């Protein structure tokens, strides 16, 4: 019984509860077919399969996710340092300081180029 089996037990419990309640819904609920009900919510017209936004690519989502990856990597490097900061002392501080300054450059560049503004 190592440290991780309780997580498995809670996971099975939660997964079972979620699947059980979703499967029940299809039996307990009534079934009344009505064409309008099953149409997707598009203010009343059939959505022709168009590329979303008419082919224009909302680049803001891509840029946010990209910036998230860069900061995620920064985060993941910060944690080992933070945990053993006392052992690493001043040397560790300078190394992390340089690392963070380096990672602020793409952030500053995107800020300046307006990648962070949502219109």
């Amino acid at each position, binding site marked *: 019984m*190592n440290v*991780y089996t309780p997580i498995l037990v809670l996971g099975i419990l939660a997964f079972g509860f979620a699947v059980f309640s979703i499967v029940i819904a299809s039996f307990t609920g009534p079934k009344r077919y009505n*064409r309008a009900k099953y149409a997707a919510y*598009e*203010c*009343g*017209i059939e959505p*022709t*399969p*168009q*590329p*979303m*936004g*008419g082919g224009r*690519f*909302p*680049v803001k*989502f*891509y*840029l946010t*996710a*990209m*910036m*998230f*990856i*860069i900061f*995620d*990597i*920064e*985060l*993941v*490097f910060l*944690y*080992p*340092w933070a*945990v*053993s900061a006392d*052992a*690493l002392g001043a*040397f*560790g501080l300078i*190394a992390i300081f*340089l*690392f963070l300054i*380096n*990672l602020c*450059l*793409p*952030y500053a*560049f*995107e800020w300046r*180029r*307006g*990648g962070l503004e949502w*219109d």
Partner: protein
Amino acid sequence: MSIDGELVVFIICGGLSVIGALGMVLSRKAVHSALFIAMVMINLAILYIANSAPFLGMVQIIVYTGAVMMLFLFVLMVVGVDSSDSLIETIRGQRLFGILFGVALAILLIGGIGSSLGDKPDIGLKAANDEFGGNVEGIANLIFSDYLFAFQATAALLITAGLGAVILTHREAWKPKASQKELSVARFMVGAGHPGNKPNPGVYARHNAVNTPAILPDGSLALDSVPEPVRSRDDSLIVDHRAVSTVVELVESEDQN
């Protein structure tokens, strides 16, 4: 081959990851293969934890499944979701040779590794982990001593990645964003079309859909009331309800086709 906890975990997670990998390669929809590979990554994270690498398992889920696959999903949902593969093969028989090559690679590697590493002792990481007080501290000590140069090099790599992505995708706006004042001035300029807001679609009509133009007091259709994207798509979408006596007829006619 003693049946212990780790073997059970290996069989379950290993099997799931192989199924996920096959699903990723074979699935029709791109988002499904993204989900399959996310499943593979989570199973690999569990295998890392089984190999006494908890920090790496968590990093795998946070950085890889949480961020990289999220970027994939973002791009997939907005770009290539429905761009299914074109089945024409530029190189004749590419599909067949690809699979043959893959299988040959697998057999070669397993054979080679199996014979050479058969009797490797399994020292295990108990000692290494506890030397600095834990797995994370051990990795931190390594990063800040032997791998310091690689650590700073990844920072430089991330600068180039960040700059490259912004330059490639972010288009500088030609003219600065129009302020509220400029917008209203442009709206009332000559030839700018209908300055006020247009009648809502479906007003006075028998159907409240967006593609039903409003009827003006003198009985003619106000085409401006149909929103521009619908109008620009094709005129067949604009439904004129004046001719149809009842809405029921319309609904049934649509049910037939």
